[in-house]
């Protein structure tokens, strides 16, 4: 597995996985900024992304369909690592 770093809102983040869904025709991303919350849990972010002129723009997931897709991707990653 190779390492992938992206910059989101000026912060360098470690990419956990990316996924392109043919049904929704959207790119999904899961990443972490290596910070922890009050319960000492690793903050892991999920969203949609678009590449524009070599720059990655990340957007929040709003629709229930996208939520379902990212839910299944997360499940698969958790079960395989």
């Amino acid at each position: 597995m190779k390492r992938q770093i992206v910059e989101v809102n000026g912060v360098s983040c470690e990419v956990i996985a990316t996924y392109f869904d043919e049904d929704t025709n959207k790119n999904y991303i899961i990443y972490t900024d290596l910070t922890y919350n009050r319960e000492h849990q690793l903050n892991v972010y999920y969203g949609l992304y678009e590449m524009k002129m070599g720059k990655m723009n990340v957007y929040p997931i709003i629709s229930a369909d996208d939520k379902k897709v990212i839910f299944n991707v997360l499940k698969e990653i958790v079960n395989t690592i």
Partner: protein
Amino acid sequence: MKKNLTVYAGAILLTGALTSCGISLVNANSSQNLDFSIDVNGDLKDAPITCAFLDYTLEDGTLGYALPSGYEPYYVDSSSLELDYVNKVVETKEYTVYVGSRETLNGEIEIVPMDGYIGVNEYYLYNLNQLDSLKAGIKGKNSLYTCELTKIDISTYSLPLGYHLYNLNGYVENTSSYYEKDNQRVYLIDDNQVQDYVGITNDVYSTIVQLESIQDAIEEGYYNEKTNSRS
């Protein structure tokens, strides 16, 4: 593994986190989190729709009510008066503290307990807002998804197939009380009450039923929490 899924070395971080305190999943570029949660066993599940307040004493001694990020206060219980104001007084990435207040008769603002409220996941709140606007649209007889009943006899009205009966007082009417004839659904409705009814499309009907089930789940969460906090 899913086609088009690329897992990077960062995934190894999940292994470590899952065997210690777990991970917090946050919707990118928003404060919304806890849509999902992953426990230390690595089980991924939807976050609960409702979340009870945690007492949070502010520096001046005022009692505030804290909710994790991704949850917002929602008024449920009409046996307690709805508050005039619900203000955010502390906001961090992980939680928000709210204080409820009322305007007194002499115009002063009085801080009061947030009785009748519970925290609701903002994803569901977003959907509930849709329910309110849909119901307002039905009340205004929006022609995109409503149609008038046609009188076919005394106290007998019909709707085209594909439409459901809706009571303008805010609920879907029991759909078993009709029969089908000539591509119409025929309902027996008192002539004096027919102005309370309208037809709504299948899609709108399904959305309302689904969203009302969320509302029921919120009420259930509230009353369960109320019972638990008493015991």
